[in-house]
């Protein structure tokens, strides 16, 4: 027991005295959560639109006003032939130059068709380069059209359609990304820190000393991992506080449940770090390359940014083997939905399983290396 404590203390000193690990532990997480918290947003807050009104009638002006009065829309007018040349062309140029996201085109017979036939069409040309934005732009346009129709139609309602959004009433994408950040940061810390520390031991040769020492392999591993668990948790708490008090993301669920799963997740990350650093044949390039190859799937395939449902089946299958996938569901559930333990039976089990497998693999690898040296 005392021997394990000795290792723990030594590790702490190493962490605090190595500038590399200090950066990883303090500077990187804070920088990340700041920049990512602000940089990641799919929200659409402003739609610049050009209006090409060939009709110039009361009705067309009413329609245009509906857009103008909506706070998201900012209208630009490519006039009806005043500046010479084709206003539609001019608007298309603006679209190409990304000065606007859409063009609203009202045909010349708009008013007549409405009064005579009771039905008229108008056109919207949306820049769909970014399909996600295009979808959202489309939503907003549809909404305005439906409102207009509702007002126009005096007799009753055709159909009733309501939408309600739970857990995130203002539909801010920061709610989605920031809890995910915490998962990403925890992974980064646990995986990178261990590989840094182990590679340093290898470089300085002190790992041989560890191998020869009377400590059992599992004692070494426990001693080595506990400090990192503590550091990672501290960082997790730091990040959580940032998310709560700076970004204003409310915490609805039990922090205890979160803590429990966080520890499991951190253990998985640490084991992964140990596995990588003991497996890499040539330390430098191979190790970092491998690290990037495991962190990247955790970022991309775990549902951190892109929903897993839309992935193709092969990638989806891979995502099921990544601890981050489960932890993300848990952390988002606990923080945003107030979910409880009973809601996470599957995810919790998978996390336990994955952590155990990784830890076992890491220990075995370590013992085997040790025996080889001895």
């Amino acid at each position, binding site marked *: 027991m005392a021997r394990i404590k000795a290792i723990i203390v030594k590790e702490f000193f190493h962490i605090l005295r190595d500038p590399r690990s200090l950066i990883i532990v303090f500077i990187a997480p804070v920088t990340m959560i700041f*920049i990512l918290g*602000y*940089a*990641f*947003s*799919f*929200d659409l807050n402003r739609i610049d639109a050009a209006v090409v009104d060939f009709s110039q009638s009361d009705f067309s002006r009413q329609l245009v006003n509906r857009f103008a009065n909506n706070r998201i829309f900012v209208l630009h007018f490519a006039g009806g032939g005043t500046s010479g040349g084709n206003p539609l062309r001019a608007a298309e140029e603006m679209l*190409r*130059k*990304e000065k606007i996201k859409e063009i609203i085109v009202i045909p010349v017979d708009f008013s007549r068709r409405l009064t005579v036939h009771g*039905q*008229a069409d*108008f*056109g919207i*040309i*949306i*820049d769909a*380069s*970014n*399909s*996600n934005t295009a*979808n*959202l732009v*489309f*939503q907003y*346009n*549809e909404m305005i*059209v439906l409102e207009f*129709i509702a007002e*126009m*139609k005096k007799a009753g309602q*055709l*159909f*009733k*359609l309501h*939408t*309600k*959004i*739970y*857990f*995130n*009433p203002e*539909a801010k*994408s920061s*709610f989605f990304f920031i809890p995910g950040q915490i998962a990403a940061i925890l992974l980064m810390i646990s995986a990178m820190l261990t590989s840094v520390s182990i590679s340093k031991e290898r470089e300085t040769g002190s790992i041989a000393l560890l191998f020869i020492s009377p400590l059992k392999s599992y004692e070494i591993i426990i001693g080595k991992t506990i400090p990192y668990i503590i550091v990672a948790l501290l960082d997790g708490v730091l990040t959580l506080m940032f998310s709560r008090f700076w970004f204003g993301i409310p915490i609805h669920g039990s922090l205890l449940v979160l803590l429990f799963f966080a520890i499991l997740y951190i253990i998985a990350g640490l084991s992964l770090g140990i596995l990588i650093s003991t497996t890499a044949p*040539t*330390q*430098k*390039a191979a*190790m970092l*390359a491998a690290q990037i190859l495991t962190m990247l799937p955790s970022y991309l395939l775990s549902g951190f*940014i892109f*929903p897993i449902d*839309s*992935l*193709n089946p092969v990638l989806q299958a891979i995502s099921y083997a990544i601890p981050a996938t489960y932890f993300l*569901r848990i952390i988002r559930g606990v923080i945003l*939905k107030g979910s*409880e333990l009973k*809601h996470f039976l599957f995810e919790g089990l998978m996390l336990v399983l994955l952590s155990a497998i990784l830890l076992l693999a890491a220990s075995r690898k370590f013992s085997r290396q040790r025996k080889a040296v001895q």
Partner: protein
Amino acid sequence: MRLRYLIKKELIEMIRQKEMLFLIFVAPVLQIIVLGYVVSTDIRHVPVGIVNLAKGNKAEQIIQRIDQTPLFRVRWVTRQPVDYLSYFKKGTVKSIIIFREALDKKRNLLKYPEVQILMDGVDSNTSLIAAGYFNGIIKNFILNDMGRRGQQLPLQAKVVFRFNPELRSINFMGPGIVGFILTILTIFLTATSLVREKEQQTLDTLLMSRLSALEIYIGKALPSALIGMVDMVIGLFVVVTWFGIPFRGNPLDLALTALVYVTAILSYALLISVFSSTQQQAMFFAWFSLLMFLLLSGFFTPIENIPSFLRILVDINPLRYLMKIIREIFLKGNGITYFWKDLLILSGISVTMVSISLLNFKRFISK
């Protein structure tokens, strides 16, 4: 030209390191293919639960429509009310649609059921878009139904999705990925090459030679730039043939932009090299910088929402300009007359970067 010996040596060294070979040729192709499939904001297979409390077959017809699209995956249909919150918390469905009998103001039964769409808003982006699609499906159904009886909505918007009518997010991400490949390779190759000399201890003999600081600088930068560009072309090829992304612009425009961009990135990487003492350190800084460049470039998410105090980082980020221009070239076929301003700014950044980097390099050499 004495320089060509240096360049030849660099290329030989790069090719003879097994890890480098992998990194240069295999990894990028893999990355592109994996990224291409992963980095997608397309909505597909969103799990839906349906509670059908309405009588009559209109609701069932709508449910069928929903089931038929690849956008949604109907997990269950029930005729009993359920505990919505519990399902959302468990996360088995992202959305629950409830059909009810609808009454108008005079308490008459309406032809079409009242539809309530409940969304799990955690992933707000998907929720909004999915909700929009639900709206669309239901509305279209009703319109078609009404259309057959001669009724119509008074106002219809005919929408054209310009430049990307299929609304595939890969069309947007693909060009971005090509830019990413160019960046990642150049940064890593350059950052490690100088450090490798330090570690091999061949740096001294190189410095003792008659090559000037500028020549050594170029000799280190050029091979990486070359390989980076070659890989970009490979990436382009993969992205166009495998993912079927349109390339509507002029390849020369792309080449020019890439050249200007690569200069900026190279200088930055050499700066990293100067300040790192081991290859590991260099790679770590390279990776971290790459991440920052990527996040603040509009690769994943639009940069419009980035608040002003971070805008400055975005505005000096060379990748941001590359992203914008490369997407324009691919999807809109824009020529230099459209993006010259961005190109100019990018050039400015490159020149500045080169100066800073060269200065530090010279200082580092005459320690």
